[in-house]
């Protein structure tokens, strides 16, 4: 789900990695390394190796399967799953591109009542993980649920057998719901593109005789193509990562197949083989994105940031624009939030908050805190090594350490399980020999394996965030600190850490929230008997019972709103260019 991946921040971080955003930033002049602190580079190598290990383990594991099993797996599991996944990705891709681009153009190039609010409100569906939107709409659109009841009352039917909407549990239902929460991945970069880079170019187009009506097709769309490619590929990675929504809605994607092959059929090599296929799909997505941005090196770092002069829509057209723009927010955020709130309030009024739910909250927060600390530490090592020794080696290590953002949670979990289980056996046997008693599966049982998976999955966020934090600090300060007698470590403590605080806080927030929302890896690696809010919701939805689920979902959505607000503020700061 969502969680994993992507977070928004990730989106921003990855965008920052593209030429698109880089053209907006001042060129960094490369300076010779200061030298010293070679061990930071070794540390960075270690972190990168930690991220790579699960992939290698996966390949090794996949090779264990027998040929006969493979034929069976291909015919009965992999081929249908691949087909379903392809259809899902095509559908979601179409929806997020159309919706994200159209909404960005609506808000960027037009002025109408409520536009300023809509500008950031359109990001809100990011706060709703895909498994929660599916959970909510299964209820809302149930034949006996509120929406259909209301429709029947209006239309004068009194029996569900006489009138019912098409079942949401279908491929088209899954495409619609995923599109509804994933379109902000396209909206965000395209909107930023229109706001920050395109204004001058669109003005230039108009002054060369291009009318407003032609502007979108002739200039805006071609200019936005790289941003659309970045956003759509992120959204599709999220869709690929999703486990809850697809499963609740009856779509047997690759992710769902990995889960069932592993958990239900206990076929680890088979699951690993599906996971490898999934990595191929991811690689194809990345290649597609690269292709879509080909030749799009944006020239000129000198572009002044200037707001686009919007076309004023007055009267009925203005209100129509608002209604149209608000629809995705209402469907993707407002309605789910409202329903969760009313359900949660009802549940708390009846039964209070159960001790079990409190325990799950503690487990969720504890895991998220541990993961955040580990992710920040790893990201700091990688980013600081790149600061000390700028160049090919540290840049490559940084990219390797960031690989996890492209790996679906189930794939990471599977990759982590193999080496960690081996390690657990070694520890157990060692303890038995030395101490006379076994430790059992201490790494998996303690949650360390899960935290490791979170680190692999989310390290990209902290590496990217801390990296861009470093980019804000002039290198002259490093030189000054060193010439005043600080070594690399001391300069990190005295100069960089204090200046990096905002970047660290932002990265921590993102990682923390994404960890809270993470479902696929958590589902597979959580210690026996431990439930988090996300897995609680999953099991309730899977069972079809709806007890504390709304409260758990509400807590996750509430946490998810925090980074969206932060993101909206960043966007506003960047978008509101001062006039010359």
């Amino acid at each position, binding site marked *: 789900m969502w969680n994993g991946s992507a977070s928004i921040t990730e989106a921003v971080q990855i965008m920052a990695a593209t030429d698109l955003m880089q053209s907006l930033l001042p060129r960094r002049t490369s300076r010779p390394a200061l030298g010293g602190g070679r061990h930071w580079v070794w540390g960075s190598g270690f972190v990168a190796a930690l991220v790579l290990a699960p992939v290698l383990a996966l390949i090794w594991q996949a090779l264990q399967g027998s040929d006969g099993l493979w034929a069976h797996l291909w015919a009965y599991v992999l081929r249908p799953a691949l087909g379903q996944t392809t259809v899902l990705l095509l559908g979601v891709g179409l929806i997020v591109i159309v919706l994200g681009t159209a909404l960005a153009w609506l808000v960027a190039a037009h002025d109408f009542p409520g536009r300023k609010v809509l500008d950031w409100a359109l990001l809100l569906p990011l706060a709703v993980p895909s498994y929660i939107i599916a959970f909510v709409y299964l209820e809302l659109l149930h034949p006996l649920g509120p929406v259909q009841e209301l429709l029947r009352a209006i239309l004068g039917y009194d029996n569900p057998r006489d009138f019912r909407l098409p079942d949401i549990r279908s491929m088209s239902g899954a495409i619609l719901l995923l599109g509804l929460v994933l379109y902000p991945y396209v909206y965000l970069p395209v909107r930023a593109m229109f706001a920050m880079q395109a204004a001058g*170019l669109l003005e230039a187009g*108009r*002054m*060369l*005789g291009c*009318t407003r009506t032609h502007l979108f097709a002739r200039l805006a769309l071609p200019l936005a193509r790289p941003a659309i490619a970045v956003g759509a590929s992120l959204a599709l990675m999220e869709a690929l990562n999703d486990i809850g929504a697809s499963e609740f809605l009856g779509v047997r994607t690759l992710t769902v197949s990995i889960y069932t092959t592993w958990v239900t059929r206990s076929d680890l090599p088979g699951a690993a083989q599906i996971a490898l296929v999934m990595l191929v799909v991811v690689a194809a997505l990345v290649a597609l994105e690269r292709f879509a941005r080909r030749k799009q090196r944006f*020239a*000129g770092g000198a572009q002044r940031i200037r707001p686009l002069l919007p076309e004023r829509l007055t009267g009925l057209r203005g209100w129509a624009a608002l209604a149209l723009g608000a629809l995705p927010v209402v469907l993707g955020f407002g309605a789910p939030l409202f329903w969760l709130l009313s359900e949660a309030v009802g549940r708390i009024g009846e039964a209070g908050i159960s001790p079990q739910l409190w325990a799950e909250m503690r487990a969720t927060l504890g895991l998220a805190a541990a993961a955040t600390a580990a992710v920040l530490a790893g990201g700091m090592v990688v980013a600081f090594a790149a600061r000390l020794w700028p160049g090919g080696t540290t840049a490559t290590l940084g990219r390797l350490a960031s690989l996890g953002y492209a790996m679906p949670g189930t794939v990471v979990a599977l990759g982590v399980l193999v080496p960690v289980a081996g390690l657990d056996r070694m520890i157990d046997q060692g303890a038995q020999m030395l101490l006379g008693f076994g430790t059992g599966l201490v790494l998996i049982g303690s949650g360390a394996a899960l935290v490791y998976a979170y680190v692999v999955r989310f390290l990209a966020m902290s590496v990217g965030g801390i990296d861009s934090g470093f980019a804000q600090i002039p290198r002259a300060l490093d030189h000054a600190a060193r010439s005043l007698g600080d070594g690399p470590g001391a300069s990190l403590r005295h100069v960089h850490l204090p200046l990096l605080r905002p970047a660290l806080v932002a990265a921590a927030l993102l990682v923390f929230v994404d960890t809270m929302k993470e479902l696929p890896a958590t589902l597979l690696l959580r210690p026996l008997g431990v439930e988090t809010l996300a897995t609680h919701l999953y099991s309730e939805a899977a069972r079809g019972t709806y007890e504390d689920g709304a409260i758990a979902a509400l807590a996750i959505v509430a946490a998810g709103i925090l980074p969206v607000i932060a993101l909206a503020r960043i966007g506003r700061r960047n978008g509101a260019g001062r*006039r*010359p």
Partner: protein
Amino acid sequence: MTERAAPPPPPWLSIEGVSRRFDGVAALKDISFALGAGEILCLLGASGCGKSTLLRLIAGVERPETGAITLAGQVLSGSGAFVEPEARGIGFMFQDYALFPHLNVADNVAFGLKGRPRAEVQARVNEVLTVAGVAHLADRFPHMLSGGESQRVALARALAPRPRLLLMDEPFSNLDQGLRETVRAETLALLRQMQVGAIIVTHDPSEALAVADRLAVMHAGQIEALDGPRQLYHVPPTLYVAQFLGAGNVVPGVAERGQIATPLGVFPAPDLAQGQPALAFFRPQALTLCDLAEGAAARVLRHDFLGAQERVFLTLEEGGAPLQLDLPATAQFRLHERVGLRLDPAAVRVFAAEG
């Protein structure tokens, strides 16, 4: 030394009473001026003075709140009318050039020629690229161009649709010093050759003095002065204009009976009230060294070698701020030497002291 103010050309573009505010802050206050056909006008001012906003109003990418803009008899904006920027026939050159990154040079230049027969577009593109000296770059993409090449392509693109007027926003500021003067001279020659009038926004006084037929100095959202460059430099109407256009000296005095007395002489000040504090302004080159007996006594404080000349800073023995004067590099003087100073009274402008 002074030029006669040129007779105002028949107006081609006219701006009348244009104002614009942003978030309640006035960016332009009641601007009026006219531009003749083929004339090159420079808008000069410090950053934030409103010169770019004025340019964008003329282009039509901003709307004025009040006032009217007329080009060749057609009302572009004012009294309810508003012509969209694409219909104005006005070319615009951006400071950052705003070349479309997804189009090559030829397609960038052809962008404004949409709707014409293919052969005609091809011919016009070749023509302007050749005139601008960048025909060999036709297949390149913007990110493959140097600063000077981008500037020429942007100029070619703006001129391709034969605009009625060309607006240029700091068109040379992204170029290196050496390149800037070459490109500037070429650009100006091209505009004259094509007989296109232009409004050029700049913050660089020497650039404005060099290229403008007429020069408008803007300050705090208003046009402080508009005249020929020589006239404005030598006979500035306000102290702000005088100081903005180049180095100068200021000596204080008080108006008495229509004149002010200073250590460097007595100068007429017919417009000032009795007892009003005043400032005498003059350029460094209006001062000359002379025998002590013939001028005001001063001491040499320091001197900066500028290559072609020596800029000397002196203080009057009666006190006051240091004065500067320019001497040939071969001039003989010593640090801390006592010298006499003489001022050409015709080069002195007297202003009321503010505050």
